[in-house]
């Protein structure tokens, strides 16, 4: 099925965005996020971007104070996901102009809109930045 969840977590381990593509109860989510964050945040720059956890593989990337963690199936193409994270960041950059943690915190809905355009049901839908941003721009214009 591909992508199971996408998390954005800051250096302190606080979740800034969480999007799941499979149903987990709140308890399970809390536990999972805690475990993953502990594992990934402890890693250094010299280590690889993949962490195996339970039956997921976590592909993660760090941008300044923000970690992007994507949980995928074990046989997903890791590098493709790694670059997909970068695509997401670039898309946010284009919209916010050098995106930072606060942008995502205060414009949570926009981050969600973008994700919504890019991933559906765990599969990549769209990789063209302008197509991704089109609905948001449309909305900004009307409001």
């Amino acid at each position, binding site marked *: *099925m*591909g992508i199971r969840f996408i998390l954005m977590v800051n250096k302190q381990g*606080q*979740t800034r*965005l*969480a*999007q*799941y*593509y499979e*149903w987990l109860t*709140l308890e399970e*989510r*809390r536990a999972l*996020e805690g475990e993953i964050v502990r594992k990934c945040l402890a*890693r*250094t720059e*010299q*280590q*690889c*971007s*993949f*962490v*195996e956890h339970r*039956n997921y593989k976590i592909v993660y990337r760090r941008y300044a104070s923000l970690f992007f963690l994507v949980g995928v*199936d*074990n*046989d997903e*193409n*890791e*590098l*493709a996901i*790694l*670059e*997909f994270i*970068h*695509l997401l960041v670039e898309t946010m950059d284009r919209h916010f102009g050098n995106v930072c943690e606060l942008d995502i915190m205060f414009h*949570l*809905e926009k981050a*969600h*809109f973008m994700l*919504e355009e890019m991933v*559906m*049901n765990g*599969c*990549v*839908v*769209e*990789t*063209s*930045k*302008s*197509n991704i941003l*089109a*609905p948001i721009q*449309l*909305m900004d214009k*009307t*409001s």
Partner: protein
Amino acid sequence: MKRLGRAVVMEIFCFLKQGLTPYEKKKYVWKMLYIYMLGYDVDFGHMEAVSLISAPKYPEKQVGYIVTSSLLNENHDFLRLAINTVRNDIIGRNETFQCLALTMVGNIGGREFAESLAADVQKLLISSSCRPLVRKKAALCLLRLYRKNPDVVNIDGWVDRMAQLLDERDIGVLTSSMSLLVALVSNNHEAYWSCLPKCVKVLERLARNQDIPQEYTYYGIPSPWLQVKAMRALQYFPTIEDPNCRRSLFEVLQRILMGTDVVKNVNKNNAAHAVLFEALALVMHLDAEKEMMSQCVALLGKFIAVREPNIRYLGLENMTRMLMVTDVQDSIKRHQAQIITSLKDPDISIRRRALDLLYGMCDISNAKDIVEELLQYLSTADFAMREELSLKAAILAEKFAPDLSWYVDVILQLIDKAGDFVSDDIWFRVVQFVTNNEDLQPYAAAKAREYLDKPAIHETMVKVSAYLLGEFSHLLARRPGCSPKEIFIIIHEKLPTVSTSTIPILLSTYAKILMHTQPPDPELQNQIWTIFNKYESCIDAEIQQRAVEYFALSRKGAAVMDILAEMPKFPERQSALIKKAEVAEVDSADQSAIKLRAQQQTSNALVVTDQHSANGPPPTVPAVGPLTLVKVPSTSGNAEHTSEGQALTQPNGTLTKIDPQTPSEDLLGDLLGPLAIEGPPGAAVQPQQNAVSEVGGVPSAVDGAAIVPVGEYSNSVQPIGNINERFYALCLKDSGVLYEDPYIQIGIKAEWRAQHGHLVLFLGNKNTSPLDSVQALVLPPAHLKMELSLVPETIPPRAQVQCPLEVLNLRPSRDVAVLDFSYKFGANMVNVKLRLPAVLNKFLQPISVSAEEFFPQWRSLSGPPLKLQEVVRGVRPLPLTEMANLFNSFRLMICPGLDPNPNNLVASTTFYSESTRAMLCLIRIETDPADRTQLRMTVASGDPMLTFELKEFMKEQLVSIPTAPHGPTAPPTPPVAQVAQPTSPVKALTDPGAMLAGLL
């Protein structure tokens, strides 16, 4: 905000209930999502979120859809309320509404949605009037609905449309259609053949960068995600037959393999390598030309040595997948040193991959190196990996052990270094191995003893060493520091440190040590009894039961020796560890073709290697010789009580009941279940003919005339259990298993009346298919008349056939009858020659003789040939009571009190045959308390032949009892027969025995 209490949240939602402006409503619903994201339970406001879906304006609708799909799952009741609105949005004219609705259904739509919306979604997907932004979402929405209910996609009608979809120009629509295709072909690749060339076309288009909008080019690479997806889809088709299609695909792949260079820009590099790794996977899947494969291996070899950790990780991962491809293992082995270096990488993810790869590439040739590397690494490995590491090392050691002592070394080291992470299965397995391999026992016991000297050892080590020493420490008795007492002391030192699960094992060990201490050491006995006493009131039922039982048993002395005897062998079977590893490898729902192949291959590999591990007990095993009393295989729960009036040969079923030695239910199952008919373990079929040596393993003492020479036979079927052991067991009892292999079990039940014997052979087919060409031929020795009733040629599946066999004893002889048995299973022709337990002692009837009857008889039979005397040397040192039991089990009745010398035994019995009729036999054994390895035996009867045969028979029994052959020190000296010449004048002239001696 983070600390926002539940109360505050509730307050917010009180506002929600009062009429809010749409803007406020929207704002609060987002806040709700935010709170939920922070991990607070939001079980209110769902209705508000769902109700926003039906709002007329886009912003509210959007919030409604997005928040609903985040908060609710597909089974939520509120979702049903929205189903109509959603449908209206999907079939409506507003494209943006369509997108929102499709996205939500695509994310959380359930079965109900699948049934009511699938048709509409399909229509949107193939509609030419729809814009790509709607169609790409329709594709993934359909994928969701298809997963919920595969029937929504009608294969016949859909194949062509799917193929059409792949002609699409828009990359967005192609990307999502490709995901849909992957799901469809993973379930049914045959139906979607027509899509294969289209995938190749898409790939070509991307590879050549034809007609790819700038927007979809990522750092100069045309949509790497679509390339990856297309190659993934191709991996679900088993092969590509169309030569043109194949050629163009290989061109593309070749270009990717050759044309991917390392570039400075990280993102470009990653994206290019994402495509490259997928291409590698596809090449492996297609099992391409040799040249291309070696290219792949070379590339991977390069990758595992680069500095960039991501590439190194993926190199190792893909090399592990590569192991499934035939013919490349050797080239992978060339990288072994590099892989071992990766095992020490600072990154756990990479170490994991390296471990997996090492595990996968291990075979007999490199097992020693790899396992030793793993062991070395174990002491520094982080905790997260130790369990996996130790399990894998244990499995490899078992699968590929060049010799078994190495296996024992590895496991003990493993326990020593990572006791916490060694599951019980691992040490159970080593116990099984040691129990089944006599050669290994002294070594394992000595090793266990060594580890006990360490100052602090892990509890698992205490368990395994206590168990091994309890069973086999008597094999070490002559080594320094290994006397029963010393062993007891060193084990007992550990008692205060162990948990309740280990205490029962220690108690069993004490009981066994006590049993093996002959002659009994009163001090040790008292110590151990004190311990048993102490635990008699233990709150733990298991401990208490053992303490009480062992105490009672050990007070009975040697009479109950065989209850505490060594454990019988475990039946060979698949290692629990390997099973465990298999379970761990079972994967989640969606499996790629490579994974599936990988699993098939591993399971094949396991079958092959299992045969190897089943080979474990090497053919040399029976060199130890047959076992008479001590090791009675607990095969017959229904054994008849044969020894009249004596509690000696207890029904063997009790052995397992009384002796709770087994550390787990699993092992207990083994003990209880050897008779159970079960399917043939694949492992038991062996190419070698090692059953031969089992027959050859008869000890020299019994050899010679006593045994009808049994020719070598070359069977491909390995018997279960030791044929000799089974035979000797049956000499002592009247029912049990004579022979067993994976296909058949031959049981025997006998009744003896004077010179007549009535035996029944039970031929049980263990399989679900019939056994053909069954033939049984009895080859009786000259002194026996035997008649076997007709044996059917075919034994139906899972049936048991009974064949009565009548025996008449003509005259005394020790020769043995042989059953020549053969059958055919499939292509296997199996032929075995089995000795039948119609032996001399079966025609004996114990008789009690009083002193008044005995002495006149004894005197009247004066001198040879009716009375023979012999000094037998090399006798296994047995305490007198035990020897008395041995005689009783041969139906020679010990008459206590006849001989005033307590070191002597007098026995009487009646022998029946046609020629002799009932014939009284009298036996006297004089033992020397100073040297129990020799004794003087006098046998008297009214028939010279009987006297001779009986004397020889007893001599065999006294000498052939398994004794020191375990230890390297004292091989049993063959008995020197000196007729009627006492070695030293019996200096007992003064003792009361002299009175009897004078009569001789």
